[in-house]
């Protein structure tokens, strides 16, 4: 079972029952799940976690859906790799890559969708839905297939064929909308209001977003129950960024970090900061869609929406729902936000592939390029333990690194081979 007291408005604090709701009727603020941490404190242990399944559901006591019968395609427990080669190239001795590109549908979205789909079935929904330009669509379709329910996925009409196939293979109904970005948003919000479907990032959003906390839990577990000094995280809506921070602080407050005394969660569960969590949270965006980085660097407390124009399509959210909360996390943690130039995105992808043998999509290229600039600016020092989150797989955005292809054409003869190889 999930240890929930219900939902709570992040702005005015009003309480709501555990239902498929995402907005406060009163102030229109976002609703978040409210945990019964006093019970969780009694049941959750490190041993209980480490003896659980090799998926995000080992953290079931800390997730807002029942872990008894989750929709699990074995998401999570992805590798945390010590990146000595990349570290050497950048001048870091203590660099790690959290390779989340190897999830079942090849992005971190499986974490959020596994929780949303499990909760949707608890609520009795028979259709799982989303609007997406790629990763989320694939994950929703995959989980619905596993759960044996229907998926209806909305995509922009001009989406690349490769990405359409990536979702279509799981057998969802796919609606390709003939319209621009704003049209797609608008239509989908109307559909979400009028159809009795579990729209993962609309009426399921409070539950869905919590799935990203597992990116924080796993890194802590993989670092022997310690938090890193720095993390670099790509952001679109900013939700994953805030939930990684929440994950670190929950473990600290529950007394699960090595050598750390737990503490109370206080009034606002979503803003709790345990003093032992000294991790600096660095946000990575691509210049062509960097509304949160722009707000941070201009000292604004709110985010002015932009029209996305970036090759990092998976990060192209112009009106980020969690923007202001992400800004608070940057401030609280002493972190930063960087908008990396568009032409560094492919360079970042190639650098990671060339040094560590990991092929990431554009979001990962953004993170690697931002890591590089944080080292160059002195924000990350040589011996500080740093984790970079790589959240999607390179096979999804092959078109952006076509320039890396350099084959040597030869005849089927030794001569031809040798002159090409030596020449």
């Amino acid at each position: 079972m999930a240890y929930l007291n219900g939902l709570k408005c992040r702005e005015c604090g009003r309480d709501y029952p555990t239902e498929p709701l995402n907005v406060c009727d009163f102030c229109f603020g976002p609703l978040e799940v409210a945990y019964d941490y006093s019970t969780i404190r009694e049941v959750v242990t490190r041993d209980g976690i480490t003896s659980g399944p090799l998926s995000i559901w080992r953290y079931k006591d800390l997730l807002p859906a029942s872990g008894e019968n989750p929709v699990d395609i074995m998401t999570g427990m992805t590798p945390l790799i010590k990146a000595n080669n990349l570290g050497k190239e950048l001048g870091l001795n203590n660099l790690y890559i959290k390779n989340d590109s190897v999830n079942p549908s090849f992005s971190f979205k499986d974490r959020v969708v596994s929780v949303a789909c499990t909760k949707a079935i608890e609520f009795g929904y028979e259709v799982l839905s989303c609007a997406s330009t790629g990763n989320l669509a694939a994950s929703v379709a995959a989980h619905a297939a596993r759960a044996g329910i229907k998926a209806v996925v909305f995509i922009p009409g001009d989406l690349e064929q490769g990405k359409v196939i990536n979702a279509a293979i799981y057998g969802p109904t796919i609606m390709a909308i003939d319209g621009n970005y704003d049209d797609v948003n608008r239509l989908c919000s109307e559909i979400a209001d009028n159809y009795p479907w579990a729209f993962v990032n609309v009426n399921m959003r409070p539950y869905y977003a919590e799935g990203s906390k597992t990116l924080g839990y796993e890194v802590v577990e993989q670092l022997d129950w310690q938090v890193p000094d720095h993390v670099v995280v790509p952001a679109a809506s900013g939700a994953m960024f805030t939930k990684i921070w929440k994950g670190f602080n929950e473990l600290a407050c529950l007394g699960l970090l090595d050598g750390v005394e737990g503490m109370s969660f206080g009034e606002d569960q979503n803003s709790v900061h345990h003093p032992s969590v000294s991790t600096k949270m660095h946000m990575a965006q691509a210049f062509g869609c960097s509304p949160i980085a722009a707000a941070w660097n201009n000292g604004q407390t709110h985010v002015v929406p932009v029209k996305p124009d970036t090759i990092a399509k998976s990060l192209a959210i112009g009106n980020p729902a969690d923007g202001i909360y992400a800004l608070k996390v940057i401030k609280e943690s002493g972190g930063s936000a960087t908008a990396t130039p568009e032409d560094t995105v492919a360079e970042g992808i190639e650098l990671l592939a060339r040094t560590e043998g990991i092929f990431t999509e554009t979001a990962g290229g953004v993170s690697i390029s931002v890591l590089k600039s944080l080292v160059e600016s002195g924000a990350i020092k040589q011996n500080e333990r740093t984790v970079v989150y790589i959240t999607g797989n390179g096979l999804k955005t092959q078109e952006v690194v076509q320039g890396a292809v350099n084959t040597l054409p030869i005849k089927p003869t030794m001569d031809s081979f040798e002159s090409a190889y030596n020449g």
Partner: protein
Amino acid sequence: MANKRYIFTFPTNMITEPVIFNLGRDFEIETNIRRADIREDAGWVILELKGTEEEIDKGLLWVASKGVRVDSISGDLIQG
């Protein structure tokens, strides 16, 4: 009739203009402010609009033509 929720983001030069008042006066739209943050240099207002779809569309076009940004309050639904 429709009930729709938006965030209006005001640039500096529009902060002092009675945009929401005029929206309610010149269009058949009932405006209902729920939250706001107005500063010297910029500001936002979260509000609900009641009216027919067409009237709300017309009203929002007018608001946007004044240089005020209109967005849905839930943020962009379409994700990567």
